């Protein structure tokens, strides 16, 4: 592929990534008064994080089983209000352990 096409493609990607990030932050100054919009915006973080996590989390590791185990550990630790780092490490460890266990199991089957 030519360098010109490559650079143009990267610049295009950068522009359509930056513009959605910058536009609302530049245009919307001050508080939005609408009660509905404020309530809507209150729920957006939860909805966006939840829909980004499920179902994508099940494809985030080598096996949906290990991902499921990591997800479960993250839910349990999250419900207990553990820090982000603790939850991330706990889930990562759970995935690793389950994948090692699966590997051992496969040897015996």
């Amino acid at each position, binding site marked *: 592929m030519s360098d010109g096409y490559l650079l143009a493609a990267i610049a295009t*990607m950068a522009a359509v*990534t930056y513009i959605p990030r910058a536009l609302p932050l530049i245009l919307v100054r001050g508080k939005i008064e609408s009660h509905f919009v404020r309530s809507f915006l209150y729920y957006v973080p939860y909805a966006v994080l*939840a829909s980004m996590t499920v179902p994508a989390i099940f494809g985030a590791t080598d096996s949906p089983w290990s991902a499921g185990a990591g997800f479960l550990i993250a839910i349990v630790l999250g*419900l207990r209000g553990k820090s982000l780092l603790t939850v991330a490490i706990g889930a990562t460890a759970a995935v690793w352990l389950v994948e090692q266990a699966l590997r051992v199991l496969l040897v015996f089957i």
Partner: protein
Amino acid sequence: MGLVAIIGCVKNKALPIPQGVMDGLPIGLGYFAVSFAFGLFAVEGGLSPLTTTLVSLTNLTSAGQFAGVQLIFLHQPLFEIALTTLLINLRYMLMSLSLSQKIAPGTGLIQRLAISYGITDEVYAVAISQPRNLTTRYMLSLMTLPILGWIGGTLSGALTGGILPGSLRSALGISLYAMFVAIIMPTFKKSRPVALVITIAIVLSTLIAQLPVFEMLRGGWQIILATLIASALGAWLAPVQHSEPPQSESNQGGGTDV
């Protein structure tokens, strides 16, 4: 472990590290792993390590970059690349709009332009769960380690290839999702409307991902539609009385549990 030592120093105030930098540490570590995979992927597809790093530096996003680079490999026209990545990145408009309500009053244009560069899913998640208004200083500190992790991980992956063992790479793949779970679960437990919105969002996003009818909506639309519908239903069924920004109960990046 070095990490524990560093956190120990900060807790004892031996080092004046801004809180934002500490809050960004878990994100930066997670990003290193994900962008490492991106580096591998892009170099295997034929990009040079330098070009691959340029993509991460200028885009600073995961899904959009993976999709865009795949289209580059297929020599797709620029219009198609623009449309696909724009769709995947439209969710940032919702995040940016939501952040606009939490940015400290008096934050200028240049500062807003600078903050915009680093609005990623995870930076947004941590920022929006802060109890206070967001200053430019906090936002830039928060972005520092994620940006370094993203660019450093890309370069490392592009240069070293498969040094990181596959089992570790697979396990680290869950870390960013685990952070999302950590942010929403405490409020899920406390607030029934939030639990309802989260449940609706999960059901919608899973339906769109699984049902063949919705095949054309996968990728960008999946998250945008699930978020719009679930949040609108929440606002309609359970309008928020005080409209306080959501706060996570978890002690983010404080390291007390490490």
